């Protein structure tokens, strides 16, 4: 029996190849994801471990809230006085302070920015002299004293920088011209993803960062007779002015790696979700191929039964084929994943998430998961057809044109489809509205897809009828009739496409809603003529001097700034904090559940306002007292004076004054600065603001309300593009499904095609017929997908109405999606249509 299985593959090469592709593409995304993230993790691990060489103990600031650091860069610092304390401890051979900050930009002498704005970040780090060896020099030497700097090899290469070049660096302090004296490696590598690293001496870094009396960390080397562990324990006893973490060098490297791993965990999960979607689509195709194959090979099975094969043997044969296809497809997918991993990395580079990946890491887990998942999905998808194969009666071998008996379950298909779809809707609703969690939403969506797929045989004839009317003449009529000849088959083929199209339609609708929401919130809140000033590097704050400078610009009527921090609220836990200037109401019109804008003018040191959602969740009312611990370990008691109802995203759960943020939270830098102008002078004032920023704060940019909205929309679009690319893999898988179904049905209709050609149908007409058939199938899928996408989009929007999400349907994009669906059909039809038109007429007529 096994030989027979293998033999039959040879006969059906194309079919097997197309099925393999369906399995392989989904598996490729799984293995590609694992390979990429494992490689990135391993790279960071190597970098951090190499960078930690010579470091016996590392002292880093710890905010009082928890151990959190932001993006690996400390949000707080260590007072310089502590270094002297550390140096005095017995067993300390050498201790140095370091400066690490992302609030920096590098320019050529001519003022052109090096290292993208908005893209991969730039970082300034102070050089660490031996025995610390995080930074090593390939060319030139380490920067010493003032006026010197080094960059990473990769930056020097891509920007064409040479030793002796003069470059400009701007940090929180004044702009400074430095000479390039060294080309460096960090942790032994020439580049850390797209990071632009600027290395200077400690003094120079302190000047650039405007941080004369504080360090980002302290590195300690132990005397030879003290182990790192002993020294760490000793230094932990040392009272420090602000909270610190004291770790051995290895612990610190492990911690850094773990932080990165956690940050990348989200990426892994997101990519695996897309892999799951592609495999889910693949499952439809595998199911369809096996179903059609079983139907076509009925006589073969019947013959086997006649010759005495048992039902189990027949089923075993189909299952064994599934096993082989699943395994081979998974292996192909695994190999394809190796090629896909760099592609995925490129995708993230394209949106600015450049990450280091040296070499290729294939963990055993990658291989096991890929093979097991791919094989199981194939086997599961092939199970129903295998069971069907057992129903072939032996007598079918002797009859021509016998039809496979309908399964006992056939009459339950439509009702169970309805039940599944309804169950899916219920699960979706519970997940979205009942707060039952995102898993339930995913499960619900999956059930809706399967339910719709089961219902779709009933939907195919009317849809095909309506769509097919677009295609004229007998060729169009034949295409239409052929597509409904086996509604179940067309339905499953279209359903594979439905999944991808639904998700594309859904994210389009969701993103459009998001953009509309942002635009609406900004429009309602920002007063006309307000300029928004922020750092060109996303998430990096501005020095307070920017706000001061803006105040002096002619025509600026009012300046307000907003800062972000965190706190631990008693009885709640870690809570984000916004702080605002008293002038905020001049430029920003906050919406209130209780209270009014005037509250923001006198928050002082004792008041806070909170958001309505947070107040609801934690039972906080106006007049209540909040007990907070700040990052610098101050304990505060604040009275709640108002409750906001604002969708702009500006307000964290708790809002305090900038004054308090500076004193008690250690937050000296502004996240956003608003500059009010009178609307009719806006353009002229903006020109003056631009000039000021260019001359004194090249890191900052000023945007009008419209520009700000466009920028936000641009960010949404970038993520949207990423989703499109990842979903396109599912759509590609479903295209192979259309190809597969067409090829199989052409094969079944060989004699018909021969007759059509014999009586004078031209090759072109045959091609057109196949193309129409593909387009009809694709449009059925696209139509159903867009409808489902609309349903999901509306449901999610309604669920998030409280968050201020507004519904905005991108009609144009959905129309484009429909057209693309049709084009996909044209694309899928190319090969099968050619095949059909090239059939030898005589052989086809003789064909059985």
């Amino acid at each position, binding site marked *: 029996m096994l030989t027979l299985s293998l033999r039959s593959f040879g006969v059906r090469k194309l079919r097997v190849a197309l099925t393999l592709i369906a399995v392989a593409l989904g598996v490729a995304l799984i293995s590609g994801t694992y390979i990429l993230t494992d490689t990135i993790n391993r790279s960071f691990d190597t970098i951090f471990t190499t960078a930690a060489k010579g470091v016996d103990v590392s002292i880093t600031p710890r905010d009082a809230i928890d151990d959190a650091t932001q993006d690996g860069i400390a949000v707080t610092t260590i007072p310089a006085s502590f270094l002297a304390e550390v140096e005095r401890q017995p067993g300390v051979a050498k201790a140095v302070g370091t400066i690490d900050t992302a609030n920096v930009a590098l320019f050529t002498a001519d003022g052109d920015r090096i290292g993208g704005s908005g893209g991969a970040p730039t970082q300034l780090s102070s050089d660490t002299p031996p025995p610390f060896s995080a930074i090593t020099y390939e060319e030139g030497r380490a920067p010493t004293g003032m006026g010197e700097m080094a960059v990473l090899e990769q930056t020097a290469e891509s920007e064409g920088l040479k030793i002796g070049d003069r470059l400009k660096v701007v940090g929180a302090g004044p702009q400074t011209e430095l000479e390039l004296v060294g080309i460096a490696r960090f942790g032994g590598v020439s580049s850390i993803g797209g990071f632009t690293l600027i290395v200077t001496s400690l003094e120079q870094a302190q000047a650039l960062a405007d941080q004369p009396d504080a360090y980002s960390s302290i590195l300690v080397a132990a005397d030879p007779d003290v182990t790192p562990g002993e020294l760490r324990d000793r230094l932990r006893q040392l009272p420090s002015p602000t909270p610190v973490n004291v770790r051995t060098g290895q612990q610190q490297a492990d911690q850094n790696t773990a932080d990165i791993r956690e940050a990348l965990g989200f990426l892994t999960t997101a990519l695996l979700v897309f892999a799951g979607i592609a495999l889910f689509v693949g499952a439809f195709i595998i199911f369809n191929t096996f179903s059609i194959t079983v139907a076509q090979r009925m006589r073969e099975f019947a013959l086997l039964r006649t010759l005495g094969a048992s039902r189990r043997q027949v089923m075993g044969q189909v299952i064994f084929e599934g096993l082989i296809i699943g395994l081979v497809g998974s292996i192909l997918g695994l190999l394809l994943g190796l090629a896909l991993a760099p592609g995925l990395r490129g995708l993230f580079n394209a949106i600015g998430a450049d990450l280091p990946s040296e070499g290729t890491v294939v963990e055993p887990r990658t291989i096991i998961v890929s093979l097991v998942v791919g094989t199981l999905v194939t086997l599961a998808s092939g199970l129903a057809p295998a069971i069907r194969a057992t129903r072939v009666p032996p007598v079918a071998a002797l009859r021509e044109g016998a039809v496979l008996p309908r399964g006992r379950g056939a009459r339950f298909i439509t009702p169970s489809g309805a039940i599944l779809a309804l169950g899916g809707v219920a699960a979706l609703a519970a997940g979205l509205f009942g707060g039952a969690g995102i898993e339930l939403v995913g499960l619900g969506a999956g059930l809706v897809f399967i339910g719709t797929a089961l219902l779709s045989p009933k939907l195919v004839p009317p849809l095909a009828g309506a769509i097919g009317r677009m295609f004229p003449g*007998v060729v169009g*009529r*034949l295409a239409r009739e052929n597509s409904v000849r086996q509604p179940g088959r067309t339905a499953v083929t279209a359903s594979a496409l439905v999944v991808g199209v639904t998700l594309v339609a859904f994210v389009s609708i969701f993103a459009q809603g998001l953009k509309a929401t942002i635009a609406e919130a900004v429009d309602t809140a920002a007063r006309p003529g307000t300029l928004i000033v922020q750092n060109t590097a996303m998430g990096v704050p501005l020095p307070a001097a920017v706000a001061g400078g803006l105040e002096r610009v002619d025509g600026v009527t009012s300046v307000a700034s907003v800062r972000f921090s965190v706190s631990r609220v008693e009885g709640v836990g870690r809570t984000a904090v916004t702080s605002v200037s008293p002038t905020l109401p001049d430029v920003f019109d906050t919406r209130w559940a209780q209270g009014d804008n005037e509250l923001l003018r006198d928050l002082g040191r004792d008041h806070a306002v909170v958001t309505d959602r947070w107040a609801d969740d934690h039972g906080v009312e106006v007049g209540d007292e909040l007990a907070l611990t700040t990052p610098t370990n101050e304990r505060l008691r604040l009275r709640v004076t108002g409750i906001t109802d604002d969708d702009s995203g500006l307000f964290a759960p708790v809002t305090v004054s900038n004054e308090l943020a500076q004193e008690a939270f250690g937050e000296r830098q502004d996240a956003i600065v608003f500059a009010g102008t009178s609307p009719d002078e806006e353009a002229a004032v903006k020109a003056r603001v631009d000039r000021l920023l260019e001359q004194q704060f090249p890191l900052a940019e000023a945007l009008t309300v419209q520009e700000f909205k466009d920028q936000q929309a641009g960010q949404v679009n970038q993520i949207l593009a990423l989703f499109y690319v990842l979903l396109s893999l599912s759509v590609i898988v479903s295209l192979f499904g259309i190809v597969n179904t067409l090829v199989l049905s052409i094969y079944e209709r060989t*004699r018909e095609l021969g007759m059509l*050609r*014999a*009586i*004078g149908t*031209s090759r072109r007409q045959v091609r057109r017929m196949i193309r129409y058939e593909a387009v009809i199938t694709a449009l059925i899928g696209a139509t159903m997908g867009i409808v489902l996408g609309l349903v999901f989009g509306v449901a999610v929007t309604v669920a998030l109405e409280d968050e201020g999400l507004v519904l905005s349907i991108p009609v144009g994009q959905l129309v484009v999606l429909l057209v693309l669906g049709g084009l996909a059909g044209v694309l899928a039809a190319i090969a099968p249509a050619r095949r059909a038109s090239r059939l030898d007429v005589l052989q086809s*007529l003789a064909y059985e």
Partner: protein
Amino acid sequence: MTNAPIVSATDLVRRYGEGEAAVTALAGVTVAFAQGEYAAIMGPSGSGKSTLMHCLAGLDRPTSGSVVVDGVELAHLDDRRLTALRRDKIGFIFQAFNLLPVLTAEENILLPLSIAGRRPDREWFEQLVATVGLGDRLDHRPSELSGGQQQRVAVARALVSRPAVVFADEPTGNLDSKASADVLELLRTSVDELGQTVIMVTHDQDAADVADRIVTLTDGRIVEDRRTQAAVA
């Protein structure tokens, strides 16, 4: 029947394969069929009778020799022109009926015209339907028709475009004797009353006897070419 030939073959040779393994299906056949003739091509299996029909109908290309259909030399035609010629000048009837299951009887009959983008001549269609006797079955699909009825649909389809010649390949091979007689009678009628030319390949002597002329092939050569009783009658 002494009209100019509507279909003629000269020195027709068809070889399959190369060298030692080459099989000669037609070893130099010269034959002509006149307009309005009802001819049967007979011969044992492997005699080359099907190959001859395929070459005459433009479905197969001869290794050498020439075929002229209605004044057109087929050797010079590319696939596109050959297809158009089959569409406009040739009608086909197959052993296995070869109707499209998704179309009704009427649509199947009109298929050659639909493919050509031509409007059916309603009067001719009515006459044809009356001749083949399918009046009340026109909106049925092939699966709802008996074998005999299906083959009558196929005959009507072959005649609908008023081709220069109709080729019938074992038209009675899949039919019982009653249905066979009906179809043969129908072909006879098409020649006698509609002036059609019919060339039929068969190995059934009773079927061949309905024709005007029987051409017999053996080993790729014509061994006999005679008029039948039917022609005399």
